[in-house]
């Protein structure tokens, strides 16, 4: 199901059918945060709200820990897991920075100076 070629691109998640299967309930939970009453219930008691969903315990822990890398590794789609950051009032840049282990300030400075250079980050096999 996963085109092999994507696996040669380092540090990159392509949201394939396989990931969609694994993250089905996680992404449904994230989508529920589109409604203001649900956001309020989640804020009031995160654990109780998470327990309404048939997600794995590891997925729930990743939500509680705001571990976005773990969320994507367990089937989260970036645009869905960003709903959790929106609840926290946390900018997308700060989430993006967390993937590369950078502080938000370091990341913002990198973006202002032209972004992350793709040289050396195109291919694990070295084909590109």
């Amino acid at each position, binding site marked *: 199901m996963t085109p092999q070629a994507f696996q040669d691109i380092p540090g990159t998640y*392509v949201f394939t059918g396989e990931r969609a299967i694994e993250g089905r309930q996680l992404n449904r939970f994230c989508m529920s945060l589109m409604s203001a009453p649900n956001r309020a219930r989640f804020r009031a008691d995160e654990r109780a709200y998470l327990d309404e969903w048939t997600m794995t315990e590891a997925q729930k822990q990743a939500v509680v820990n705001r571990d976005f890398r773990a969320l994507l590794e367990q089937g989260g789609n970036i645009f869905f897991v*960003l709903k959790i950051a929106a609840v926290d009032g946390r900018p997308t840049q700060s989430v993006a*920075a967390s993937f590369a282990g950078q502080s938000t300030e370091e990341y913002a400075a990198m973006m202002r100076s032209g972004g992350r250079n793709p040289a050396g980050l195109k291919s694990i096999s070295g084909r590109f």
Partner: protein
Amino acid sequence: MARISAGIGSSHVPAIGAALDGGRTAHPDWAPIFSGYEWTRKWVAEHPPDVVILVYNDHASAFSLDVVPTFALGCADSFAPADEGWGPRRVPVVPGHSRLAWHIATSVVLDEFDLTIMNEMKVDHGLTVPLSLVFGQPAEWPVKVIPLAVNVIQYPTPTANRCFRLGEAIARAVRSFPEDLDVQVWGTGGMSHQLAGERAGLINREWDTRFLDQLTADPEALRTMSHEEYIREAGSEGMELIMWLTMRGALGPKARELRRFYHVPASNTAVGHLVLSPEA
């Protein structure tokens, strides 16, 4: 008869909308971007379209992963801004053009492009940020909009060539609409960017520049480019650029570049912008 008068390519970075809505257009991070669109604001005011067919992608706003249409055409009379997790953008409701939209739906489906018909749809920053960049902050949008939402967030996404050919089919549909309408096609998204993973923050200026060159002069290479190459070179969200191919396809074999703007960064993203006119 209706005619396609121009094509516009534009990024749709949500932070641009937030900067505008929050009154931060003069901030050094944002001022270069808004001034980069000034030429276009003036040009569009001088060449006002009746209708914009706006090719964009939804970002988990109108569509959850319960239903994933590859191409969804907005046939409603109006489209309300979506709540993207922090309340809807305070921008006017987007007026639709139901009769032209249904004509396009009928024409392209009979032309073997099986798209999804949306009679009710909320629209997110993917659609409203380009409108804001070109029209500013009016009390009402000065144009009717036909949204065309393309799936680029759940693989499999359509091929670049399929997007291009849909643009060609849309042009055939517009030309056969009996009313005298000036129609622009906008392709949005991109340019190079990646939000997640260790490559987050990737910007490929060299590749973006080549994309902007080729889109006008020689779109053939971009049509046949693989998803792998789009993602490898322009980042996982750079895949959005396939939507610019629909705009280009709608303009016909030859197009002329009237305006180009490129800037790094807007938040996580390289901003690209083109105004193209079809050439006989």
